[in-house]
């Protein structure tokens, strides 16, 4: 893979040659090195890490961990669309890696707001896959950045954190955490947040692993008088909400690309099954009721492809519509993946209910993705608000 900057596509929907190459590389990597059996193995062997460190090393060597990171910080700088293509392929094999937590969410926060010193200290290590950084954001079962209440008291130019976080993706294997804390105002205020970078082994920090239904990992994080020095604040104190929101929007779009990968995979597998499985002497895909449902699903997927592709390309173009598009995309893909995984399972019939068949794993992953960074209801409300109605 080249480390040159990728040429921007001439249109909003068509990939450049280099993007196509990147996608092919990613497809080959995930299908060969991180097939679904990889996730099953991590699950069944109750892996302590919940990820395969060898796989992550290989991915990083391919440059995948640094796609969003500029060359100056050791990244491959293929942009949001490039990362979207990788995520789509990762979604097809349910690859459990720190790609989203570290190389997307944390990286975007750092890129949005970190000082030059911090960027130089952290980004090259992320790009090399040598450091895993996780973002500790949520405090309840529902995504809601404005509702953050983990308290950050000002002291000696830095902050002292007290409170609890939940659903911290890959928190238990993170070398560093970015903790989103409230240093001003109160729960419900959009502003008044600070972004704090802390070492995993800091005094006053407790990280406890959780397991999720998709066999991936998150953590509960507790801060008790956790001291953050001034130079470990990403951006300026109290002003973390804006860069956080910008990072979240790009992450929502990239997550949607991963969802699209899963949606495509489930639909393709279901289509195969409809052609192969016979009942009453004919393939079940010849029954009109199933044909019509499959056609409607396919139409929905075509719409999803357009939405994701456009949102990715607009992100690369730094469009001022990214927030709206992120909500459109995340809501749409959440609804589509619910539809496709439910229909995929029903069309598979009894065999789809067994753990041996992968369609159930996709359903579980889809449900976690649905909640992550806001479910469709959250994003419909946000889309309406951003549109002024």
């Amino acid at each position, binding site marked *: 893979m080249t480390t040159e900057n990728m040429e921007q596509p001439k249109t909003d929907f068509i990939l450049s040659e280099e993007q196509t190459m990147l996608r092919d590389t990613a497809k080959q990597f995930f299908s060969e090195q991180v097939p679904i059996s990889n996730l099953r193995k991590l699950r069944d062997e109750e892996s302590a890490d919940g990820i395969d460190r060898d796989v992550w090393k290989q991915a990083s060597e391919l440059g995948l961990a640094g796609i969003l990171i500029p060359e100056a910080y050791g990244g491959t700088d293929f942009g949001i669309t490039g990362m979207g293509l990788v995520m789509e392929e990762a979604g097809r094999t349910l690859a459990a890696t720190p790609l989203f937590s570290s190389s997307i969410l944390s990286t975007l926060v750092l890129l949005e707001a970190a000082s030059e010193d911090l960027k130089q200290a952290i980004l090259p290590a992320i790009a090399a896959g040598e450091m895993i950084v996780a973002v500790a954001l949520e405090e309840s079962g529902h995504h809601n950045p404005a509702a953050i209440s983990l308290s950050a008291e000002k002291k000696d130019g830095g902050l002292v954190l007290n409170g609890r976080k939940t659903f911290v993706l890959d928190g238990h294997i993170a070398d560093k955490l970015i903790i989103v804390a409230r240093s001003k105002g109160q729960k419900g205020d959009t502003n008044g947040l600070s972004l704090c970078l802390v070492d995993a082994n800091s005094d006053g920090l407790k990280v406890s692993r959780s*397991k999720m239904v998709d066999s991936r990992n*998150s953590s509960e994080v507790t801060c008790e008088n956790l001291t953050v020095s001034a130079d470990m604040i990403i951006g300026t104190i109290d002003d973390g909400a804006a860069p956080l929101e910008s990072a979240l929007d790009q992450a929502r779009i990239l997550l949607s690309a991963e969802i699209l990968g899963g949606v495509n995979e489930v639909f393709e597998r279901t289509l195969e099954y409809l052609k192969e499985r016979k009942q009453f002497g004919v393939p079940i895909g010849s029954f009109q009721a199933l044909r019509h449902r499959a056609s409607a699903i396919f139409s929905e997927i075509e719409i999803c492809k357009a939405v994701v592709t456009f949102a990715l390309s607009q992100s690369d173009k730094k469009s001022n519509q990214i927030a709206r598009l992120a909500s459109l995309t995340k809501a749409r893909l959440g609804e589509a993946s619910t539809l496709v995984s439910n229909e995929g399972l029903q069309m598979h019939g009894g065999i789809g209910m*067994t753990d041996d068949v992968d369609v*159930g794993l996709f359903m579980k992953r889809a449900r976690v993705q649905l909640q992550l960074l806001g479910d469709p209801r959250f994003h419909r409300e946000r889309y309406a608000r951003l549109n002024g109605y």
Partner: protein
Amino acid sequence: MSNLETFREETRAWLEENCPASMRTPMPDEEQPWGGRNPSYPNPDTKVWMERMAARGWTAPTWPTEYGGGGLNPDENKILLQELKRIDARPSLNSFGIWMLGPALLEFATEEQKQKYLPPIVRGEIRWCQGYSEPGSGSDLAGLQTKAEDMGDHYLVNGQKVWTSYADKADWIFCLVRTDTSVKHEGISFLLIDMETEGVDPRPIKLISGSSPFCETFLTDVKVPKENLVGELNKGWTIAKRLLEHERAMISGMNMGAGEASLGGMEELAKEVFGELDGMIAHPTLRDTVTKHKMDEEAFNLTLRRTGELAKAGHGIGAEASIFKFYGSEMNKRRFEILLELLGTNALTTEGEGHDQDVMDISPQWLRSKGNSIEGGTTEVQLNIIAKRVLDLPEGGQA
């Protein structure tokens, strides 16, 4: 005093005396009274209660006394059920033998077979499982391929059954087997097989929701005595259809309302998670979603009641069970989707410090609910049945 009043008094007195105190408490899963050759009684009262009820034939209250049943008429049976409910008595025996096989034997078996099989069912001595589905059959149940060859003095059975609930714990299996490969429905027979016979191998199935009572059951050169055939050779489909209708009705009534009980109801849950505004769920669009579902539930329950009354009055439409199965299972799936939405990532956590076990128990139930519209005849099969039997729509279109 009428006979029925006497019956009620006597029943009440007998139950008061004979139902052990611990059998009047909520039943943990592991204390389910399944009986069988190798029963498990973590609570010894389970055994006592079963045996006392069985002695009166009240594990199968409406079966004839000559086969060990209670011989109760419908009115008496109703009173018994009411009195059991009055003291919150646990079931004395869970049994596919009573629920499914027994009625079929009473209708289709020879006198000898009835004498042989029914009494041990009533006494909970033999635990049965059902061998209908096969990996290749699914919705096309009559396409089953498990073959029983006539070897003169016995049948030689080869094939594979799937979705045999508790096959790994059952003593006997009632099976549909193919005894004529040249025709479809008319080549199926109904056979009883001892699970200890050589060549019978049940293996539990793991579901997307976790471990399950379901098994795959492999049948390899299994020798089955010819007297184990129920009904006529190649007439097993008639018995199967009767049993399927029964199963459908049973499934549609099951699972309703489960899951949220421990969490205090969907609407309470929504208030808890999102708070209240003037006493109402503070999240207006989720409130609307919850309300739609509550309306669905109330309307569906009224439909069950209406159908019950109509059936009693002899006005059945013939495919009620399919409507209930279709609507009930789709509704139950929606219910768990809403519960998951209400609980967010907390319900998606399977292990984690500070997480509530009741909440974490929801996601396996959500996954399990996906099977509701597949097992016991898929939603698609139910819709086909309604179209054919009730709407009388023509078949054969290919566009």
